């Protein structure tokens, strides 16, 4: 698989110091099941490179499942399966012979609840992806730790306690540590599954700012049940209802001039 051309980001102070990528994702007619339960009914969505795409919808509508199909995490749940094509940078990640492990290295993920590795320090968490993939060079690890912690806007808060357990940080810091951990393997796309739903408003705002900053370098997809959050953070918004992709448009258009009646009902708070 040819890599997207990685280029070093300009080291502007405060800017996310990442390897830049320009890979988009296109989901075509994606179906997903948990055992016999059909949760996604042919959802399609083109996700543009270096933008924030928000996926909104009421609880249980299949938005998280859709997200987990994008990096082949869905299939890890016993009894779960899916169908359809998902093109990363033009290549189908579900094609026969594609190693899901390599796909997950290119498409990172941040979860609803912060989940740093409980046995690892802040530093070890940040470089876990590299180290578990076999990287031993101390210099590479040190550089990656600092680079990804800076990219996750956490470096200044933790640089003096890199040896402390990752779980000793506050909830918001833990979530940014998880973002740093995902960024450390320089993914082309970062999927965020309701990343702020367990955080207080201040920490939520930091995560949102971070998502905006990161979108200058990589592609961001964020699932949220919080419509204000989608409006604040995203360029494009997709609305899923009962496993179907109801409407996709620029965030501005979705929230001001929704085309579909159901989208309008949802964003005006008539249900959900």
């Amino acid at each position: 698989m040819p890599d997207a051309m990685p280029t070093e980001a300009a080291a502007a102070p405060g800017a996310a110091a990442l390897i830049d990528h320009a890979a988009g994702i296109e989901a075509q007619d994606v179906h997903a099941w948990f055992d016999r339960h059909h949760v996604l009914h042919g959802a399609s969505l083109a996700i543009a490179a270096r933008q924030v795409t928000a996926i909104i919808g009421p609880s249980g509508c299949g938005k998280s499942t859709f997200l987990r199909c994008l990096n082949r995490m869905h299939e890890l749940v016993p009894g779960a399966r899916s169908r359809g094509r998902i093109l990363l940078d033009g290549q189908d990640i579900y094609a026969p012979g594609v190693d899901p492990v390599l796909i997950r290295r290119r498409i990172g993920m941040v979860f609803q609840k912060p989940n740093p590795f409980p046995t690892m320090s802040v530093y070890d968490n940040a470089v876990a992806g590299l180290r578990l993939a076999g990287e031993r060079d101390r210099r590479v690890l040190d550089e990656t730790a600092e680079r990804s912690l800076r990219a996750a806007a956490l470096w200044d808060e933790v640089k003096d306690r890199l040896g402390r357990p990752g779980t000793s940080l506050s909830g918001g810091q833990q979530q940014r540590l998880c973002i740093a951990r995902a960024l450390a393997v320089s993914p082309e796309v970062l999927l965020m599954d309701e990343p702020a739903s367990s955080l207080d408003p201040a920490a939520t705002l930091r995560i949102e700012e971070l998502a905006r900053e990161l979108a200058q370098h990589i592609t961001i997809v964020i699932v949220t049940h919080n419509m204000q959050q989608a409006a604040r953070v995203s360029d494009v918004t997709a609305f899923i209802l009962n496993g179907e992709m109801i409407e996709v448009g620029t965030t501005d258009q979705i929230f001001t001039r929704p085309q579909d009646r159901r989208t309008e009902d949802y964003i005006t708070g008539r249900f959900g």
Partner: protein
Amino acid sequence: MPHSYLRRRWTNRLMAGVTFLCAVAVLAPLFLILFFLARTGLGALDLDFFTRLPGAAGEPGGGMANAIAGTLVLVGLAALLGVPVGVLGGTFLAEYPNSRLAGGVRLMADVMNGTPSIVMGLFAYTILVLPLRHFSALAGGVALGIMLIPTVMRTTEEIVRLVPQSIREASLALGIPQWRTLVRVVLPTAAGGIVTGIMVGLARIAGETAPLLFTALGNRFWNWDPLQPIGALPLQIFAYAISPFEDWHRQAWAGALVLVTIVLGINIAARAAAARQVKLR
């Protein structure tokens, strides 16, 4: 109603008193044993006891150095067999809980847990002593090791299961293969609990006598050859306790004291390991 309130209060006090007495009743035998062992055993406990071989029959003096070392060797051999099989088996049960094999293994482990220890000895006798035509430390270690497997396996299974799915997913989403996630993330997260299970299992088998009777057999001399009979504290205690010599009786008490101290020490170490387990709930 003040009347019913009074009655409730007295009932409460009465019941609290009963539970307290029951708690004391649980602890009392342990402390009585420790007290009794210390009173009778401490007298015979001297440097010779830890450094010298048993004396000739009927002669005062001598020690149990070979038996103490033998017990440690036997427990070590048992650990060599029981720990890897138990930990890996328990990991399998936790990771593939619904496979048909897991159901069978779980049932077998529970049956093994309830199997009388002398049967374990008979088993080792049949598969090792008879073919090799020799009582041996190896046979004793195998008998104890088989007894260790179910304990270690079930505690490993339980603690590995407690590792949250979110931790596994975090690793898998980083593009870490499943086996490496298991070895580098899941097992380390469960390590404290697994070590505790191992120690509790070791403490349990350290004092076993029956499985050693016709496997390790016992030995009045030093032995470092796994294919030769070896001494063990419980065997030595038994032999001395049924002997007609006053001095040996005292030494048997001392041996029992040392054995209980070893078991107690392992248990305390297990508590320390448990305290280091990261919180999973």
